[in-house]
């Protein structure tokens, strides 16, 4: 009788779902690592709560950040989320590399089941909760500033997207403390993830975390696309948009079309697991091939969702730090659009080995190679942008150069993999793992790190420490080559991916080198945090309040750093591709507006946090079969949406007098600042005012 009550209240939960209990019962190193990770989550949460209480920061955190609809603050919160998740996923990667290096003909220290959870969370987090929030955050911050807008088209939806992603990421963290995660990898292929083979809560955590995240990303895509179509300032025609805005637009379009297949795939898998459907099961007519197609119909465009924004960042960075107009703007726009369209035509290359006929494989193989053409064009466009320029080797520029050199190698192996007969040999091996890390580390991570270094002074008003930036950069590059080049060799020797132990002594030296590379990547991550710490400590010496530390070109540099909440005192109007750069040359920049007006901004709203937190709670209820929680949560989400629709007072006014006061103060800062030449832009002499050559 009491059993029935407990299971109604707690669903499938039992004490052994807690890693502490498991570590107590079977104290192996593997279980102790699991319990240690859980304690880090719990202690981290306690520490954060204590600090917030001690510094009385709960209220300001809630009213100025968590409920904010300001695209800039939402962008920053996305990036913070990305860094937290990056830290977890990098540590997981290091653990896996250490395990593999120590498990040649021995079991190593991480049990197979634990290892499988590690590669599943590593992949899922890196894609859905590191890469996606990172690029969404950067676009959120930068894109509206670049198109001369005061916010995105749907500020509330923006907050809801953030909180859905945050809730899903929270679910990933909870899975460390309660229960276990999926062992089915980031792609969650059935039938392995079906009830018949994985009856535990793991795949359910994966399904609901990915579902929440994918809904958030679909909404984000819609929001960004509408913003770019409808909210550009006067004169900002499509062909005058900064290239980062173009890549943001293409990414948004890809999100709109590619995320729904993922939501559908995970929802259908949920139907199988919860309601006894047989869509992807082995029996009763199920067919997992349908899942593979749906998943990769999302999965391949996803690659370009991740990479295109970085391409935009590189376009901005290379042009700015070469003091030169972007070479082949039209070419770059066409290439970006071509990539976006072609990305929907290649998904079969993820399963050339599924037994379809040679004609089909050949068509998809050729389509895959075709994407290489516009991608190559982009790289050459950046090279010709540096050509006859004045290149400065700042941290963002170093990342861009490392990207060009490294990405080409990934493209090389990508073309190899596009050949079905060659793919047959290295599919599912470490060669493939090396290839996609070779694309995504330079093609996403370097880009986002370049973006943070480039736009950080804009967002916070001071530059990041250059020395630590270079140290971190060196670690990211050296670590990458050491960690992943050996995997190409191992993959060519037939070493399967996702393997907890190896039995070939010949693999040993390569696994050691890869392990050392992983440790250097861990150092790279650590030095990023050191850099942030040092930069915050030295912030007063490195202020760039005038707002233009790099002799920038676009509208985002034409305002104070950090920008006022309304971005622009008056909405700018532009007449070219590099409005601010040209303005500085013609003397039109830094002009006081003739007239100030009241500015209407969206009022803060708790709807986003409520939907995100309640949504995650619903998902948690579904994972553990705590039906009352799931029902209550669903109801609460519906009530929150209906209640919000009755709120009429959703705007607030920033009075003209305040705008005038703030703008005048900034203009005084500008006129007090010393204009500096590019040679000393990385020294404290840089106050954010660029010297314009006569």
């Amino acid at each position, binding site marked *: 009788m009491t059993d029935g009550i407990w299971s109604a209240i707690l669903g499938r939960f039992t004490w052994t779902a807690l890693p502490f209990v498991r570590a107590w019962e079977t104290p192996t190193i593997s279980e102790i690592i699991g319990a240690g990770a859980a304690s880090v989550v719990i202690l981290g949460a306690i520490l954060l709560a204590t600090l917030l209480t001690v510094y009385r920061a709960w209220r300001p955190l809630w009213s100025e950040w968590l409920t904010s609809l300001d695209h800039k603050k939402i962008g920053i919160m996305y990036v913070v989320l990305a860094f937290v998740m990056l830290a977890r996923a990098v540590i997981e990667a290091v653990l896996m590399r250490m395990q593999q290096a120590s498990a040649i003909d021995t079991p190593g220290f991480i049990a*197979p089941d634990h290892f*499988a959870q590690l590669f599943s969370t590593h992949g899922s987090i890196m894609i859905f909760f590191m890469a996606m929030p990172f690029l969404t955050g950067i676009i959120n911050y930068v894109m509206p500033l670049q198109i001369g807008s005061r916010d995105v088209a749907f500020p509330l939806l923006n907050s809801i997207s953030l909180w859905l992603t945050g809730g899903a990421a929270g679910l990933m963290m909870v899975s460390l403390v309660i229960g276990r995660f999926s062992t089915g*990898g980031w792609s969650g292929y059935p039938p*392995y993830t079906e009830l018949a083979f994985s009856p535990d809560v793991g795949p359910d955590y994966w399904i609901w975390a990915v579902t929440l995240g994918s809904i958030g990303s679909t909404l984000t895509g819609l929001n960004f696309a509408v913003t770019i179509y409808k909210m550009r300032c006067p004169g900002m025609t499509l062909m005058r948009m900064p290239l980062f805005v173009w890549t943001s637009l293409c990414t948004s379009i890809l999100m709109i079309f590619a995320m729904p297949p993922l939501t559908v795939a995970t929802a259908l898998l949920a139907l199988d697991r919860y309601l006894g459907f047989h869509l992807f*099961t*082995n029996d009763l007519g199920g067919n997992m091939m349908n899942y593979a197609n749906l998943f990769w119909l999302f999965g391949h465009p996803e690659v370009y969702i991740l990479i295109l924004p970085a391409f935009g960042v590189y376009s901005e960075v290379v042009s700015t730090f070469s003091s*030169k*107009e972007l*070479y*082949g*703007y039209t070419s770059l726009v066409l290439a970006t659009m071509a990539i976006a369209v072609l990305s929907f035509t290649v998904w079969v290359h993820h399963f050339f*080995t599924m*037994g379809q006929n*040679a004609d089909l*494989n050949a068509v998809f193989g*050729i389509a895959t190679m075709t994407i*290489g*053409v516009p991608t*190559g*064009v982009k790289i*050459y466009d950046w*090279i*010709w942008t*540096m*050509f*006859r*320029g004045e*290149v400065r080797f700042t941290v963002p520029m170093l990342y861009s*150069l490392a990207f060009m*050199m490294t990405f*080409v*190698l990934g493209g090389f192996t990508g*073309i*190899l993999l*596009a*050949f*079905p*007969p060659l793919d*047959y*040999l290295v*599919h*599912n*091996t470490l060669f493939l793992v090396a290839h996609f890390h070779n694309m995504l580390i330079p093609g996403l991570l370097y880009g986002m790190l370049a973006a943070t270094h480039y736009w950080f002074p804009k967002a916070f008003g001071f530059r990041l420490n250059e020395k630590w930036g270079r140290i971190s950069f060196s670690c990211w590059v050296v670590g990458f080559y050491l960690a992943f080049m*050996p995997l190409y*060799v191992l993959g*060519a*020797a037939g070493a*399967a*991916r996702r*393997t907890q*132990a190896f039995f070939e*002594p*010949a*693999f*040993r*030296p*390569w696994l*050691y*080198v890869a392990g*050392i590379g992983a440790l250097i990547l861990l150092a790279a991550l650590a030095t990023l945090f050191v850099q942030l710490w040092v930069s915050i400590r030295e912030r007063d010496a490195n202020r760039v309040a005038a707002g233009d530390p790099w002799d920038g070109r676009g509208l985002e540099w034409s305002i104070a750093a950090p920008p006022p909440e309304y971005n622009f005192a008056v909405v700018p109007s532009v007449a070219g591709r590099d409005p601010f750069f040209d303005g500085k040359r013609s003397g039109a920049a830094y002009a006081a507006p003739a007239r100030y007006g009241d500015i209407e901004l969206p009022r803060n709203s708790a709807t986003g946090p409520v939907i995100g937190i309640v949504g995650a709670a619903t998902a948690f209820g579904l994972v553990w079969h705590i039906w009352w929680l799931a029902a209550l949560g669903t109801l609460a989400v519906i009530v929150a949406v209906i209640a919000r629709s009755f709120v009429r007072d959703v705007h607030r006014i920033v009075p003209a007098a305040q705008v005038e006061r703030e703008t005048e103060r900034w203009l005084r800062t500008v006129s007090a600042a010393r204009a500096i030449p590019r040679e000393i832009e990385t020294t404290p002499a840089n106050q954010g005012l660029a010297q314009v050559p006569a």
Partner: protein
Amino acid sequence: MTCPARRIVPFALLPPALLGGCSVLKLGVVNHAGPVAASQWHLYLIVGAVLVFVAGPVLLLVPIIAWHYRLSNKRSAFRPKWDFSWPLEGLIWIPPAGIVIGLGFVLWHYTHKLDPYRRLPSSQPALEVQAVALDWKWLFIYPDAHIATVNRLAIPIGRPIHISLTSGTVMQSLLVPQLAGQIYAMAGMTTQLNLEASRRGVYRGENTQFNGQGFQNEQFDVVALSPADYDRWIAVVRTQAPPLDAAAEAPLFRKSVLSRPAYYSAAPARLFKTILTRSQGPAR
């Protein structure tokens, strides 16, 4: 075997090749042992050679141009407004497109030539083998000899092997890197793989698709024998191995890792077909 661990650690930053690490490539397609893998390796070389000309210019131009046009080099030209040139535009679009078109023909040809379903040309009829993916082992049925093995695939050299695959559990993927590429094995479906060994030897075979806790142990040896040895082997298994009856079959379908290969005589003729259709019944 040539890489003692203690020596590696202090020198791990050196290329492992210096320490005998290149022996690892002997396990892969580089050391191909059959016509399919040989042809695949040939294709690697062709595509790799072409790609050197694609990647090479970028690898050269990026450092040269970035360094030459550095800010501190006051002798280099500076044209901040220069942003387009038709000849350059042609140079960055047309040759890459041409290379992709050329490679497209190569791809089409080799994809058909090396289609895993395509029978290998030979004067002898292909040896039929049926492979069943199980957790965490491979069952190989020799329908003509009425024998079966687990985790060991013995084949005669010089004769094409035609493998039909299915799975008695989740999806798996069969790969023997020195002989041919991989193909998935899926429950309720049959896929095919054609391969051939041209020299005697023991080649590593594996499942590359993660399928649970015993995944890393799901490896098997492909033993390529001379035709005479192969016939002798068949005869020995037929006469000395236990029969594959219901009692022997049941444990194979349970999740387990076998420490050594197993051999069975009297494999039921319809076993593969039974496994293939059984998955369409209710879940067990």
